[in-house]
């Protein structure tokens, strides 16, 4: 693939060490605007640490991160979010003792100043997209686990981000919910760049334009779903060396 335009988000040799452990090791990475990029890899490959550095939750030990043409390496997470990056946690992180409505309100209200009508519309629209609009007055903590995941995605969408980072969004969802999620991601794909850490290969194959495979903190391969499916290194990383 020829990269002619500036990438939407890119990492230039970023690393993260935790004491002596190297979680992410000099990764170069770039995603063009509007692409859905899946990040896969075995457990412990450094996927969450890697996207954590992109969104600012985890500081880099070395390297540089560019977002939308600007160097954001030194920006704290909340400023990166306000520049258009939304992030959902691997382990569901919502406000259990607030209503769904208030959860989404917190996510989106800073975008709108005092435009209460726009806030209300965004809340309804975002909850509508994940199918939770009829529950907006319920306490978020009373939802099932799958619904809490969807609420967190609604909070991400409500920020109208340019870049949406989803860390294992389908973990714990029922099959019917996964089908809805795949449909939603495809719809959103045109409007925003999406990074998707995902273990469910069906979801990856059904949504991703490109896949980056991480293993032991390094990029093992990047390519289309078809390339990755046929890549021998990837098969070895996932399944172990096979003796022919």
């Amino acid at each position, binding site marked *: 693939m020829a990269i002619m335009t500036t990438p939407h988000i890119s990492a230039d040799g970023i690393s993260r060490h935790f004491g002596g452990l190297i979680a992410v090791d000099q990764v170069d990475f770039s995603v063009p605007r509007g692409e859905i990029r899946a990040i896969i890899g075995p457990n412990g490959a450094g996927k969450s640490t890697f996207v954590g550095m992109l969104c600012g939750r985890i500081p880099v030990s070395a390297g540089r991160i560019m977002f939308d043409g600007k160097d954001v390496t030194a920006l704290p997470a*909340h400023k990166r979010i306000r520049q258009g990056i939304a992030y959902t946690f691997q382990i569901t*992180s919502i*406000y259990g003792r607030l*209503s769904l*409505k*208030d959860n989404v309100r*917190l996510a989106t209200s*800073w975008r709108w100043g005092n435009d209460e009508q726009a806030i209300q519309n965004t809340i309804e629209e975002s909850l509508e997209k994940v199918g939770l609009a009829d529950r907006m007055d319920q*306490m978020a903590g009373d939802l099932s686990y799958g619904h809490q995941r969807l609420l967190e995605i609604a909070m991400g969408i409500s920020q109208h981000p340019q870049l949406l980072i989803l860390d294992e969004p389908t973990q714990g969802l029922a099959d019917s919910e996964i089908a809805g999620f795949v449909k939603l991601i495809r719809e959103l794909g045109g409007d925003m760049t999406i990074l998707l850490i995902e273990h469910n290969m069906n979801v990856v194959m059904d949504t991703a334009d490109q896949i980056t495979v991480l293993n032991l903190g390094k990029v093992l391969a990047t390519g289309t779903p078809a390339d990755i499916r046929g890549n021998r290194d990837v098969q070895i990383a996932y399944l172990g060396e096979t003796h022919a």
Partner: protein
Amino acid sequence: MIEKTGMTDARKSLYFHLGLIGALFILQFILPAYHHGNLARIMVLACYAMGYNILFGYTGLLSLGHAMFFAAGMYGMGLPMVHLGWTPEPALISAIVAGVVVSAGIGFLALRTSGVSFMIVTLMFAQAGFLTILYFGEWTRGDEGFVIKQAERVMAGFDLSQPTNRYNAALILFSICLLLTIRLVHSRFGRVMIAIRENEERTHMLGYDVHFHKWMAVIMSGTMAALAGAAYALLFGYAGATFASVQYSIFPLLWVLLGGAGTALGPFIGTLFMFYLIDLSSSFTTAYMLIAGLALVLLTLFLPQGLVGEFRRKVVPWLS
């Protein structure tokens, strides 16, 4: 704890609290002198507790050093009056400035820590503040404290040592603090404070500068505590190092826990309850702290959300 945001709920809650202020106004014509004096004192101490509640109840930060903010206001008021001959009006301003400066400085440093470390750091700063007051005993009169003369306690033409004036001054201050708290809780800033209490990491990753919000919460909380300290010095004519001691850092925590953390009215109810618990039990036994302690244990076991917290949970979910 449920924070509703609808307009009608906010309005119902406002009317409820305005009703309470009205009731407190009427009570002064009914109460016997003893309880009349007590209630004035309770209202001032409740302002201290309301300040504490902004940080502890709404933002989720447990400070063990609020006595230094109370004392900053008390001495910010008392010292210039006694040593510089200031009238109460400019002294009130110097008390508020002292509260802002001390809480901004301490908050800036203490917020580099969190959780248990934050408790320890605030405790240590308050202890340093207490020792500083003792060290400058020449001016502060240390533990013994100093009296502000009756003739000097005249503000805007009102003699604040006179019981009726004192009661109404306390009521005005109480009303301001209560209404400010309600206003804050329903503001966008207040919602972010509550969000930090409920889930700090999520709030940061939704695009909020958590550290700044916490710092502002410390400043608002500390300044309200200082205002209460200033009022205490002015209305009761005394400033002393006891009010800067650990004991006075623990009191607002107890009052807020008893009344209900994160409720606008909880601090007042908690202060009222504990004041009379000690008052009544000490009338028939010298082991009154044993009775107070037992009551606290029982309340914590059976009403973990405090008196107002449980009342809100069971009866009026719209309460601020």
